[in-house]
């Protein structure tokens, strides 16, 4: 092997063990991995498979309580497990840097951001405080933080998750490493921010020729950004391949299984092939929302949080209406307000001809059985001391006319409808799996035979397999009970699967609304386009890094307390013009029936 194609970093038969003697468990076992100079490699694996342990192990580090039991880690011929501490320090954070997974807890809670970045920079260079500060500003700016000078004095608890992630990335880049280990650098971030950060990482790695090991659970990230992939399962690498062959022909059964989750797309395609099955029965609106506005007061202040702003839409009988948008966009508030769990600040809502926005409490109570909700975390809304029978039967107290036995009948009917055995009636939901709990929550929502159910991120806490099962179940229930759904999700795949029409929300407003095909296949509004483009499909034929990225947004989402004057996207929009700055964007319906909130789309400029 010539030095030219020698790997940069190589781990051989690594074994890391937590605990001592009898309690000892191996987290990494026979772990082999090598990274070549300048390549972008991906490491994929499920939660708990040892990815983060591996990330630190590549720097010769383990958490307290763990130790290396066997194996070697070689970096350019030096054995990191047997290197003097001083030499190791010159490698860590300098030649090999890491972006830790728990970014916020990886930052010292009592020290400001500038000090922490500066400390890393100064550990590897002969510089003073002033220079380190200048470097910190430069780094913060390079990872897309606005006003980096001011951010220097911020403490970690004052940062948003995205910002904390950027700060850690800045720390990792401080000394221009040759290898960057990025441990789920974008988990928990919204897709548009994720795309910004990963684009950034990819661009700067390619520009400086440094190598990256990108750790993730998301095959979409692997497909779009990596050259090569390592698949990790239970502490060991079970497959390594270049991305193209990997996605077309995965070798290991585990790889095949995780890739099979792409079937979600396949099912979708099938659904698309049978438009009659998926098309909503043509009918009048069941729920009609006009110019809904909801603000929340801020304590000790005159200002308000504008959570929902001039939102209008309707949901027809038997239809699934999807609400997508990133965190804080107001989806949940819309869902809660149309159920009158929150009182609307302004606007009108009619449900089956009734003026829902001004309905008195007593009448609202009578209406409750027709309006139900399913939450993201089912246990939030269940008394942990209750049995399955009590949980599902609870809404039936709204149905006075049903006899005791009829109620029991209903509970069993629904339990079977959601695919659970009636033998679990006396068990406790808190002891069940997340998927079963969500089924129970769905059974409870459907037990009164409602006309309208709000599904607020019902699958966000579930694994991909369970998500699919729940979606199929929801679709079946919709046909059986001819119920309408307001389906709220930030996960575009689930919305695409279940919904007939879709609205995209940004900062409390609907920016685009249309049929699923209109919005997903040819979005018009710049935000909708960015959101859809940022969604990373596990598909190597159209990689994000290979195409020209025109839809990308800039900067951070503004605070809903301090909104821009004109278009809310102004400042982040790739298509913005001077006119957008101060012109409030009105809702306009285009010829093809879709609605948008952008004058440039209306005038056909984009």
């Amino acid at each position: 092997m010539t030095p030219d194609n020698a790997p940069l970093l190589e781990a051989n038969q690594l074994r890391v063990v937590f605990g001592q003697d009898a309690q000892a468990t191996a987290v990494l076992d026979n772990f082999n991995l090598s990274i070549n100079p300048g390549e972008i490699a991906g490491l994929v694996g499920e939660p708990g498979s040892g990815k983060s342990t591996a990330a630190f192990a590549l720097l010769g580090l383990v958490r307290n309580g763990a130790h290396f039991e066997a194996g070697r880690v070689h970096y350019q011929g030096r054995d990191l497990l047997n290197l003097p501490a001083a030499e190791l320090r010159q490698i860590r954070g300098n030649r090999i840097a890491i972006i830790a997974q728990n970014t916020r807890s990886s930052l010292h809670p009592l020290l400001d951001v500038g000090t922490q970045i500066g400390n890393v920079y100064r550990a590897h260079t002969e510089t003073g405080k002033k220079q380190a500060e200048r470097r910190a500003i430069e780094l913060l700016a390079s990872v897309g933080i606005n006003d980096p000078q001011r951010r220097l004095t911020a403490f970690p608890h004052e940062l948003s998750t995205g910002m904390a992630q950027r700060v850690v990335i800045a720390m990792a880049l401080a000394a221009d490493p040759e290898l960057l280990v990025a441990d789920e650098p974008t988990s928990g971030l919204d897709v548009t921010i994720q795309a910004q950060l990963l684009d950034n990482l990819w661009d700067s790695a390619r520009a400086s020729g440094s190598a990256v090991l990108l750790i993730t659970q998301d095959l979409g990230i692997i497909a779009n950004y990596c050259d090569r992939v390592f698949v990790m399962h239970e502490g060991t690498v079970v497959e390594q391949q270049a991305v193209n062959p990997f996605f077309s022909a995965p070798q290991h059964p585990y790889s095949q299984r995780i890739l099979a989750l792409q079937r979600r797309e396949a099912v979708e395609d099938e659904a698309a092939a049978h438009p009659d099955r998926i098309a909503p029965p043509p009918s009048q609106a069941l729920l009609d929302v006009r110019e809904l506005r909801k603000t929340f007061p801020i304590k000790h202040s005159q200002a308000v949080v504008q959570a929902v702003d001039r939102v209008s839409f309707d949901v027809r009988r038997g239809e699934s209406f999807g609400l997508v948008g990133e965190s804080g966009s107001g989806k949940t508030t819309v869902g809660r307000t149309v159920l009158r769990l929150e009182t609307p600040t302004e606007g009108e809502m009619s449900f089956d001809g009734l003026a829902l926005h001004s309905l008195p409490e007593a009448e609202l109570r009578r209406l409750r059985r027709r309006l139900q909700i399913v939450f993201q975390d089912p246990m939030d809304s269940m008394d942990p001391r209750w049995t399955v029978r009590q949980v599902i039967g609870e809404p039936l107290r709204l149905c006075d006319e049903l006899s005791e036995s009829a109620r029991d009948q209903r509970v069993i009917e629904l339990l079977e409808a959601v695919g659970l055995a009636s033998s679990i009636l006396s068990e406790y939901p808190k002891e069940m799996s997340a998927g079963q709990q969500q089924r129970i929550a769905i059974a409870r929502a459907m037990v009164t035979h409602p006309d309208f159910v709000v599904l607020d991120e019902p699958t966000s806490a579930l694994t991909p397999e369970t998500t699919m099962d729940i979606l199929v179940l929801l679709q079946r229930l919709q046909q059986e009970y001819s119920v309408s759904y307001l389906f709220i999700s930030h996960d575009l795949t689930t919305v695409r699967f279940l919904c007939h029409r879709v609205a995209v929300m940004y900062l409390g407003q609907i920016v685009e609304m249309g049929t699923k095909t209109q919005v997903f296949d040819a979005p018009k509004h710049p935000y909708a386009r960015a959101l859809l483009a940022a969604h990373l499909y596990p598909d190597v034929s159209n990689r994000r890094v290979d195409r020209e990225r025109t839809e990308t947004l800039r900067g951070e989402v503004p605070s809903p307390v301090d909104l821009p004057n004109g278009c809310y996207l102004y400042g982040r929009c790739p298509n913005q013009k001077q006119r957008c700055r101060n012109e409030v964007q009105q809702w306009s319906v285009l010829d093809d029936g879709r609605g948008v909130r952008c004058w440039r789309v209306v005038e056909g400029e984009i």
Partner: protein
Amino acid sequence: MIRYVAMRLGIAVLQLMALAVVVFFLIRLMPADPVARLVGLNASADAYAQSERALGLDKSVGEQFIAFLGFGEGRGLLQGDLGRSWVTGEPVAAELMRSLPITVEVVSLALFVSLLIAIPVGLIGAARPNGLVDRGAFMWGLFAGAQPDYWWGLLFILIFAFTLGIAPAPLGRMDPLIIPPDPITGLVLIDSLVQGRLDIFVSALHYLALPVLTMVFTVSGAIVKMIRQNTARALNSDYVLYARACGLSERATARYALRAALTPTVTLIGIFFGILLSAAVTVERVFSLNGVGQYSVRAILDFDYPAIQGAVLAVAMVALLVYLLMDIAHAALDPRIRE
């Protein structure tokens, strides 16, 4: 920050006021006859009535309360007057000015020495879990907690004063033959230094050694345990691991851990100051220190209402002040507290 301090001070004043009210009525609920206690059971009805008038106990509780607060003719709480002791006839405030500093001195010194020992022991225990120091500290905590503080006090007197003869007999806070320094702060250790009286300073330290030792002995086990916990948490934290992963030097990493481990200690100081204040009651008794603990015991046994009220308020004020100072220090050290 200034607003925070002002708010906290305001709350402290309200707390003191509430406490004053509660104490005032609580002691009057006691099935006690302070007049009989003072004039003796064989006193004539005349003498009894006269004494009752002198103490103001002939008036209704409401009127007494108004007088106590200072809304009546005489001076009261509002004017900063705690009244006169029914037993000694001296102003309670003046008596407290003599007794309170003694307690504050013993307690502060005990806390200081405890931290001096507990911080290194706790740090080493966390750095080497199950090492010699860690196990030793654990055993010590169990051992010291097994007996009440006065028991240890008596044992120490037996060993150090009578058997070994290296500590003075428990006869107060300095050699009875020394004339105390002029009170400036009331704290002998400080006053003697200010006046350049090294001999008094040494003697006072000598006499305080055993009471302080007793308190340190019983309380530092618990402090060690808490510091050890905080340190272990810091050492196991993601930010220390990440600092290592960034190649920060051992010294810098240790500083990260120390900073996080010791910041919560300031709240510990407040808590343990309170604990030691209550321990002072028995320790003062064992060592014949005329601190506020002894003073309160005396006042209660004598049904000396003004003295009881004064002592309770004085102790509460000291405790609240210490809590406040520690909270301010904590806020200065921890940005998360500041909001």
